[in-house]
């Protein structure tokens, strides 16, 4: 293959590449989400149990998937950064966090919106929703840790370590919250009792997921450009105007 991918690992080369890619991803995202919503809201059949209100899952489930997927991707980028000492990897991890957090929040919000008509309460402590809540805290931790540490290098690495620890925690949380649900029989409502999937419903969900994914790529590329700019500025402010780096040894 002709493309030398390695050259794009330098922020200066990555910046224009990202700029060129963003419009494509945005367009695909818009189309996919539009198609998904069309099918989900208008074409898919009414659920015989939950009526129209179930349609919120076309946003809720893809958002939840994206929130977890993005967390793992963020942790992977952080791992690359630490393993290869590559700054761009850390910048990607930094760019991913807010989008991941946004999807987590969206999943929680739509979860509540689904819960109200279905179960009569704005919040139910089922395994999936509670895990999403903890995930939101973990995203918050990653972001807050980064902003609290002044030294960029330390901030990158510390939030990377926390992201990786969090990845291990997510399945444990999910298991433990499910366990907790079975302990306390009274509160065993389950959001996972989604209506049986008609083919159209599945298509809609997959389209929405794909659309969210494309959207994420576009937004993250855009944000990573901002991160690059920020960091380059920081570097240039600190470079002394005319100082000899050279060192004398006698």
């Amino acid at each position: 293959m002709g493309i030398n991918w390695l050259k794009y690992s330098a922020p200066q080369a990555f910046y224009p590449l990202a700029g060129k890619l963003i419009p494509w991803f945005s367009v695909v995202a818009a189309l996919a989400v539009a198609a998904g919503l069309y099918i989900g809201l208008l074409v898919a059949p009414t659920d015989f149990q939950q009526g129209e209100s179930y349609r919120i899952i076309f946003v809720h489930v893809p958002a939840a998937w994206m929130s977890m997927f993005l967390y793992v991707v963020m942790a992977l980028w952080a791992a690359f950064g630490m393993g290869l000492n590559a700054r761009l990897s850390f910048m990607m991890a930094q760019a991913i966090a807010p989008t991941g957090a946004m999807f987590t929040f969206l999943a929680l919000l739509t979860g509540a919106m689904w819960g109200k008509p279905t179960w009569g309460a704005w919040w139910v402590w089922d395994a999936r929703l509670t895990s999403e809540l903890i995930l939101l805290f973990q995203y918050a931790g990653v972001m807050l840790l980064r902003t609290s540490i002044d030294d960029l290098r330390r901030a990158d690495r510390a939030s990377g370590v926390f992201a990786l620890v969090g990845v291990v925690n997510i399945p444990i949380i999910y298991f433990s919250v499910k366990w907790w649900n079975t302990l306390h029989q009274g509160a065993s409502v389950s959001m996972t009792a989604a209506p049986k999937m008609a083919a159209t419903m599945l298509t809609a969900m997959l389209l929405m997921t794909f659309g969210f994914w494309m959207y994420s790529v576009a937004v993250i590329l855009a944000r990573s450009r901002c991160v690059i700019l920020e960091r380059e500025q920081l570097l240039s402010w600190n470079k002394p105007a005319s100082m000899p780096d050279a060192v004398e040894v006698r």
Partner: protein
Amino acid sequence: MTRPGMWDALCGVVRRDLLLAMRRRSDAAMPVFFLVIVASLFPLGVGPEPAVLRTIGPGVLWVAALLACLLSLGRVFTADYLDGVLEQMVLIAQPLPVLVVGKVFAHWVIAGVPVVLLSPLLGLQFGLDGEAVAVLALSLLLGTPTLSMIGAIGAALVLGVRGSGLLVALLVLPLYVPVLIFGAGAVASSLAGVGAEANLSLLGACLVLSLFFAPWATAAALRIALE
């Protein structure tokens, strides 16, 4: 003159920290006081009805123990970081994770063991019966070391960072949730007559898992903090 092995280094670390705690006994006793105060706040807030207290007891006591551990995390590494002892520890010819285990063990002896010992009294305050009280103490015995190990990761990540007290709570509490669920669950199952073995084994599993992974993560975080 022989170079000390890992075990000697670990004992050396533990010995120094315990000696330091003895010199500042009041500092070391604070988590215990906190536990008692918090545990007493709940009946004051919720009302003294025995049935209610028995229901919320396991959860409240576990949350209080968890918060007491959280508050004491500042003492694991901060003092050593500030006076230069930490960087000396990193430069020792023994693996840093081993030394971390030593520090965390000492922290557990100082902050965790008193909680375990005090828990039966607090359990009785909440109207827990004999078996439940025993399960409570056992669950805390298994759980508090895990809390110390996981907490150490957070403590190491925020060394020297402003606002670290609250930040460490935010980082560490999501990681504490499984231990809380299994710990409080053990006592709740015992109260319900179901038997606490399952939850207790899960607590044991958490302890083993944390013993294997937390020291590495903590050591990595310490090196990052010292750069």
